[in-house]
């Protein structure tokens, strides 16, 4: 297998991974969702029972449901972070506007996907959410009632069936289509990162297993119910008891529209957030408002002696006053941050450059093997623990353990990569011109191993390196979009890289230079 996993040298920040993580979570959601479809029944009076069956009876149904649920939350969160990172780093410029616009639409679809997902359980909360969504659609002037009928059908029976159709087919298909356009220039795919994310999702599922909610019963009025966290911001506006079209449709619509046109308003010629004060300030404002309203939507006065009206309704004057107050605060905060960043930059220029404090952990080969074997033993233990957890019906504990296993695998992969980079000559430098392998062998004999049959050893070395290139090549080399589908390295690149490798090998005779190259690669 010749999988190519490229470490993103272009991305200075690990936040550059966020887009890839969103996509990976999308895949996880697709797989777990497809499996859940085997047992879920989108019928009004069977939906909740079928989910309960998955959760309680079907082996590993609990695991898959929890992974699906927590991955959906993670996807919304990671997509949001991805958007803000791209926003503050100005990456929607230089003809990347289409990526930004499709990204915003993808984000909206992601939230709709998550929303339809938690509605088709048809618990009490889902019933409220469906009713609110339908009533908001209904409130749109002129076309509203027709739209509500067209999208959601005539009643709960239609709602469940149609939300299911949206959730498992229409929205994902639309998202896949948009992803084709949204496809980034550099696909960054990093196995340890993927495994760590999967592990984190499983860990979360093990620690905070999602509950079932109460089955919706029209005869029992529901209690106070709050939507998922990505909708509480909107919910706080709805709770201000102002006109429902304005608060529930116009405000979020305006927010999405503002995001869509950002790249066409931002006329700054620079990328950094420090050089785009107004845009940065607007971003900080939106972030502050989102955080405040998200919390506000969750907050319900715990005083049960008060009436529900008093506890639930947010005074619109208070709410909008706070929203307006956040604008100057955020602008001031941005001004302060830019000032501080500028000062820090100036100080850094004035002061003499400190010697590089970048420390690298240098493990000897023995230690690498030792750690690897220790991790393997730990994996064996975790396997046994997970098995017994399942046998004893401790589902969330087994999910937790499997999450740890994923994380351990991520660590193992790191060590494997480190060990390989120590054994192997560093990857070819792209500046070196490719030379035919034959021409290089004489030079090898000059500086190669000072012992015994030099030419044979050299050629053998070369053969080995060629074979190595053919069989395992997780080396950082090139950046093809099909990072996970390659079957074998192309022959031309093999010969070129092997020759280059031999040259670098001749250069690095001592351990010192090799370590330096490894350190270079790490940066």
């Amino acid at each position, binding site marked *: 297998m010749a999988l190519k996993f490229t470490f993103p040298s272009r991305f200075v920040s690990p936040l550059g991974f966020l887009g890839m993580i969103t996509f990976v979570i999308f895949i996880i959601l697709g797989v777990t969702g497809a499996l859940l479809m085997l047992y879920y029944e989108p019928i009004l009076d069977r939906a909740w029972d079928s989910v309960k069956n998955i959760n309680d009876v079907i082996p590993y149904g609990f695991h898959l449901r929890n992974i699906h649920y927590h991955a959906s939350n993670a996807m919304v969160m990671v997509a949001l972070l991805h958007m803000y990172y791209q926003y503050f780093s100005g990456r929607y410029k230089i003809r990347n506007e289409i990526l930004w616009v499709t990204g915003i639409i993808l984000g909206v679809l992601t939230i709709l996907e998550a929303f339809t997902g938690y509605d088709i359980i048809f618990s009490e909360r889902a019933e409220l959410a469906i009713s609110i969504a339908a009533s908001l659609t209904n409130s749109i002037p002129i076309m509203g009632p027709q739209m509500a009928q067209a999208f959601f059908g005539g009643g709960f029976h239609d709602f469940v069936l149609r939300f299911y159709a949206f959730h498992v087919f229409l929205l994902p298909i639309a998202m896949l289509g948009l992803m084709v356009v949204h496809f980034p220039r550099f696909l960054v795919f990093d196995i340890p990162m993927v495994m760590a994310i999967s592990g984190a999702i499983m860990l979360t599922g093990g620690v905070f297993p999602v509950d079932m909610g109460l089955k919706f019963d029209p005869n029992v009025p529901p209690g106070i119910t709050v939507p998922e966290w990505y909708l509480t911001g909107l919910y706080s506006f709805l709770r201000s008891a102002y006109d429902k079209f304005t608060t529930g449709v116009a405000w979020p619509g305006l927010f999405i529209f503002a995001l869509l046109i950002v790249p066409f308003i931002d006329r700054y010629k620079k990328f950094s957030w420090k050089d785009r004060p107004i845009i940065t300030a607007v971003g900080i404002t939106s972030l502050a408002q989102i955080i405040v309203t998200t919390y506000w939507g969750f907050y319900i006065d715990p005083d049960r002696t008060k009436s529900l009206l008093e506890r639930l309704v947010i005074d619109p004057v208070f709410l909008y006053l706070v929203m307006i107050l956040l604008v100057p605060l955020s602008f001031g905060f941005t001004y302060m941050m830019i000032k501080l960043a500028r000062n820090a930059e100036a100080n850094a220029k004035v002061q003499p450059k400190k010697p590089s404090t970048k420390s690298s952990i240098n493990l000897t080969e023995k230690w690498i093997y030792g750690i690897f074997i220790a991790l393997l033993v730990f994996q064996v233990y*975790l396997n046994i623990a997970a098995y017994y957890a399942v046998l004893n019906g401790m589902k969330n504990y087994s999910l937790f353990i499997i999450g740890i296993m994923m994380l351990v695998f991520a660590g193992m992969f790191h060590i494997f990569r480190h060990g390989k980079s120590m054994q192997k000559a560093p990857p070819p430098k792209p500046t070196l011109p490719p030379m035919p392998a034959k021409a290089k062998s004489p030079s090898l004999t000059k500086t190669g191993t000072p012992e015994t049959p030099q030419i044979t050893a050299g050629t053998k070395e070369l053969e080995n390196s060629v074979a190595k290139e053919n069989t395992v090549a997780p080396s950082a080399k090139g950046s093809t979009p099909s990072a996970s589908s390659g079957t074998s390295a192309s022959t031309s690149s093999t010969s070129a890289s092997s020759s280059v490798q031999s040259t670098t090998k001749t250069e690095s005779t001592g351990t010192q230079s090799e370590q330096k190259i490894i350190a270079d690669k790490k940066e």
Partner: protein
Amino acid sequence: MAQEPSPKSGGKVSRRDFIKLMAAAGTVMTFAVFADWGKFLPPPKQQSGERQKVELPDGSQANVKSFPVNHAEAVIFPKSTDPVLNKESFRTWQFIRLPEELGGKKNDVSSFRMYSMVCLHLWCLWKYWPQDGRKRGECPCHGSMYDPLTGKAFAGPASLQAPPSNVLPRLDLEISSDGNVWIKPPNWSPNGNGVVGFGRFLT
């Protein structure tokens, strides 16, 4: 660290191979846990150890005194609380009171038979035909015929199948003092009550 890999001789594993081997072991150890997740796919079976009444399509329980001779009804077993599951063909059984010449007149359990309605050939649903000259189970798909006395296929494609796939699964019955017919808890194995869609060894 920067040593050349030792030449492969004497069956020694080189360092490069060793770390690869460990990486493979780590991958196997990580994903081994997911092998058990395959249990998600087949639906879990629930088995009740209680006898169940022979509930006729009209909702009444079959009774020795009222059930006519040379007559058959479709009965659901095991009956689920979920009405959808009661539509499964694999839960459908033919409850037969044998014709007079086969001993159906006796008011005891020997005059009743209960066979799976799933034909052993290609899983169509057969039924019992009480007309004169037939008095046997017939499958509408490929014409397999079943002997109501034993459940053995005597003609058609099902009769050509090797045992146990030529004898229908059969449920054991018992009759309480008031004459009601009950189904005893089955043993789903070819040597016991048989496997629906697969067959039973005739003992």
